[in-house]
């Protein structure tokens, strides 16, 4: 907790905006390659798609320096604790992209070995469909993430307020099945 906690309410939104704008300009993903999607994630940083055009390609080898985790590929039962540990090692604020069908829902691996969606172990901000998704889709997802989440990340006392609001919303949410 730093100086932002002392900022009075009317100024907080402005400071948030400045923080968010700075954060979205340097969103650093952790190198978290799992399976097929990891190859597309590499292509995402390679010349053809060149995510470096928007400063998205600075993959950090250490989770301590990263604020975005791209779960790229099928997540096995054996790998799940490790992914969670990597997530826990990342400093706040942090975001998660679930890349591909397997990471989002288990995909076609509906069996004993695969976790049926990485949202069982980490909170996911954006799901990308596809098997594997094209690198363009990953670029698009990061843009959407920046616009919706990173730009408006709360600071100071707003963090607690937002967390409470999120919890309330999630508890009241109905599942897809219940929606009919």
């Amino acid at each position, binding site marked *: 907790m730093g100086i932002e906690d002392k900022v009075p309410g009317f100024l907080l939104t402005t400071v948030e905006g400045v923080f968010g704008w700075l954060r979205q300009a340097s969103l650093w993903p952790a190198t978290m390659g799992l399976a097929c999607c990891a190859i597309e994630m590499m292509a995402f940083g390679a010349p053809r798609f060149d995510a470096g055009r928007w400063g998205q390609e600075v993959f950090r080898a250490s989770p301590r320096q990263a604020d975005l985790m791209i779960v790229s590929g099928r997540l096995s039962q*054996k790998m799940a604790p490790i992914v969670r540990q990597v997530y826990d090692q990342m400093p706040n604020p942090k975001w998660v992209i679930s890349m591909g069908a397997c990471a989002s829902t288990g995909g076609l691996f*509906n*069996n004993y*070995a695969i976790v049926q969606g990485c949202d069982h172990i980490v909170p996911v901000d954006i799901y990308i469909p596809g098997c594997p998704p094209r690198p363009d889709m990953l670029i698009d997802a990061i843009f959407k993430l920046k616009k919706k989440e990173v730009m408006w990340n709360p600071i100071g006392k707003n963090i607690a307020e937002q967390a409470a609001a999120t919890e309330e919303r999630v508890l009241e949410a109905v599942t897809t*099945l219940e929606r*009919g």
Partner: protein
Amino acid sequence: MTASDALELATDAPTIQPVRKGMWGGGPGDVSGFGGISRPIQYNSRATRPYGGWFDEVIDQVLGLVPDLPEEVSTDRGELTIYVPKDLILEVVRATRDDAALRFETCTSVCAVHYPDDLGAELHVVYALLSMTHNRRIRLEVVTSDEDPVVPSVGSVYPHTDWHEREIWDMFGVIFEGHSSLTRILMPDDWDGHPGRKDYPLGGITMKFKGAEVPPPDERRSY
């Protein structure tokens, strides 16, 4: 288990034939009207001499080196399979590797198959051997039962079968006697059961859509 018991198991194994029922694999929901049909499945047919090509030569050589080996051979689809009693497997692979006329230097693959209907010989371990010198491939098949799933390890002859044997232990629960560290390799160390076996469920979840549910693949109607 004595040597003669194992020998008997090996010879008996292929004679027990599983049966295929109905038109749709005997599962529930066979509404085809042919649910009463019952046909035996002929696995692992046996060949008789002459086997053709270099097969006879190899078999003669192996039988000469391992006189106890019963002559049980399949030449199905142009691939030579020798059925080996499990207590002889180490002797056989040592002979096939070291003999100049055989010289199967590499065991390219070891894999297990679980035949739950093959009572008394449920687990088959299949070794695919490759001779680079003579450019030949043969297959050795060893059977063992669920009650006594122990097979001698061939790691002392083919060091590179280390992980294959660990994988088979992990997936099928076959114990390789003499393996230096028979631990799980693919599944987490604390996993229960051996997922490759037929009696282990696939373990999928029911997929839920709006107004519909799709059961996991192993619970759907089978053909």
